[in-house]
């Protein structure tokens, strides 16, 4: 059972992510945004449902497709948008862009542009939690591609041996760029890999808020009880190309259309909320409109933000100021 206010939060967050991403695509097409941008459209249920169970002091690590996690973990749309445009008001002063965006104050230890790069880092954050006996939890988001990296195996094993309070959330969107999961991954369900580390491993419908929520709730409870990590595979789908400009020769338009029309996570959740009579259509419409407006305002803010000063480009390499010989 998801409490009503949490349902509202999840619906709002999913809409914020979608509107944010579509605005980014729009800005990219207008050449107002550059670099590597990987959009999360179609996968919103995962970030929103998982993060609805986290507090600011809980940690996440994210991926190159990380805007959704960043927003769901509490980032402001305007500062996130400013970062994606490389502006000084961005969360990382324009140094990170899309692929490395982080928000430490909200426990987001960063998007990670190296596939699988964030998995050991979340594991280490969970080790810190265990050592200081706090009741935090760490969540590592990663894709199906990362599940074939060595860091996946090393981290799940380490967390299994040490019973660390970490939840490994695999977002399986069916493709590693162009390579379908069946071509890269020996198992049909990545969730079964939990067995290798003697930890619960579950595969859920990644477009079903309720399924993700329940799996995460169980995993977070287990983590906080000191019983160790869990692996949750969320099977989902990205609507857009791997990157903006991807010719998408590896999948059919029909396949994309089928996911969009039959299994859209926001539509499915909306229908369920209406059926449950949790909210009226007008209430949900208002949430959608607010998200749209927020994304527009975020873009406005980002476009009008100043560029970072090149004179500061050497700042923050190290914690303290160093001599010129560096």
């Amino acid at each position: 059972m998801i409490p009503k206010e949490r349902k509202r939060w999840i619906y709002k967050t999913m809409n914020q992510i979608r509107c944010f991403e579509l605005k980014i695509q729009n800005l990219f097409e207008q050449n107002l945004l550059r670099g590597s941008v990987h959009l999360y459209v179609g996968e919103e249920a995962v970030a929103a449902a998982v993060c609805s169970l986290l507090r600011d002091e809980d940690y996440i690590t994210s991926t190159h497709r990380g805007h959704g996690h960043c927003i769901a973990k509490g980032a402001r749309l305007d500062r996130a948008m400013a970062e994606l445009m490389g502006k000084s008001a961005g969360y990382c002063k324009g140094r990170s862009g899309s692929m490395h965006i982080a928000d430490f104050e909200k426990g987001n230890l960063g998007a990670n542009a190296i596939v699988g790069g964030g998995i050991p880092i979340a594991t280490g954050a969970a080790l810190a939690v265990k050592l200081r006996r706090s009741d935090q939890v760490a969540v590592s988001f990663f894709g199906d591609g990362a599940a074939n990296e060595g860091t996946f195996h090393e981290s799940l094993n380490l967390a299994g041996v040490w019973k660390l309070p970490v939840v490994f959330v695999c977002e399986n969107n069916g493709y590693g760029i162009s390579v379908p999961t069946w071509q890269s991954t020996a198992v049909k369900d990545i969730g079964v890999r939990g067995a290798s580390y003697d930890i619960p491993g579950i595969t859920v419908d990644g477009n079903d808020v309720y399924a993700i929520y329940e799996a995460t709730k169980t995993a977070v409870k287990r983590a906080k009880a000191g019983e160790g990590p869990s692996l949750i595979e969320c099977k989902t789908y990205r609507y857009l190309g791997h990157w903006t400009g991807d010719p998408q020769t590896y999948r059919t338009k029909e396949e994309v259309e089928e996911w969009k029309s039959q299994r859209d996570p926001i539509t499915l959740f909306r229908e369920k909320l209406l059926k449950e009579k949790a909210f009226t259509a007008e209430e949900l419409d208002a949430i959608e409109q607010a998200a749209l407006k927020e994304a527009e305002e975020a873009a406005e803010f980002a476009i009008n933000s100043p560029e970072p000063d090149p004179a500061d480009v050497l700042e923050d390499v190290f914690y303290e100021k160093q001599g010129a010989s560096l």
Partner: protein
Amino acid sequence: MSKKTYATAIRDTIAEEMRRDDRVFIMGEDVETLGGVFGCTRDLYKEFGVERVRNTPISEAGIVGAGVGAACAGMRPIVELMYMDFTLVSADQILNQAAKTRYVFGGKARIPLVIRGQQGIGRGNAATHSQSLETLFMHVPGLKVACPSTAADAAGLLRTAIRDDNPVMFFEHKALYSVSFDVPDDTEYMIPFGKAHVKRAGKDVTIVASLLYVSRALEAAEDLAKQGIEAEVIDPRTLIPLDMDTIVESVKKTGRLVIAHEAHRMAGWGAEVAAQATESAFRYLDAAPIRLGAKACPIPFNLELESAVVPSIKDIIDAAKAVCYHQEG
């Protein structure tokens, strides 16, 4: 002062820092009951328990990454790599994650992480267990690089490394572990990073050396003195930050520069020192600087072959004489 081996100085410093600060812990392969393959964590688990002296699986990327994550989350981890050659197994976590995190996150993160272990020749460990890799980690901004040549330096630099809020690559030398030195008893003994140590004063030639090559350079200097050449021997102690001021001052005095290290000569850090000294003190130089480093082949197993690959004391003497245009006889 106490007489201590280099390994014991490292062990004692880790223990003192763990006593001082709960956030400090160490993890690595065989660090618990075995005390590390080289004894640098001997018996620490008895005092601090296995939570803070953690045996790890053989998962170098995983444990270095866990160190990065624990550091981001407020701890002060020390990761022991049995051989610094294994940094290559965990290279992404060091060079892409630890090194860049603070910067790309706009200065929000602090990464108080020490990655330490030994390297180098001397035990017949052959190609993948005898390299000197410190230069690799100088090239990617965001890491500090420390190279202690004595037990006192190991203690003073390691304490500074553990208290530093940045990732530090701490390169020990396997051939030094069992050598005894005088070490200050002060549990606050710290050597600031970026401060070279002039090991021997001299007016004729500057020899810059680190790790095992400091003692070799000093031996060469004794021999050179008998031939009327007074060498100034400088140990930079940290390569990032690099104390070029001390080196340049010395070169301005001597007009001659030799750099000796065990790392490969090709694109080794000696090239950086030579280039910077030339840029800063060109008018003072009476000869082109000479760089000595390992030859361009992997470190071979056979003892004689191993010795043939790295610079000898005679090589240092010959280089010093060459830059001094010293005539035999």
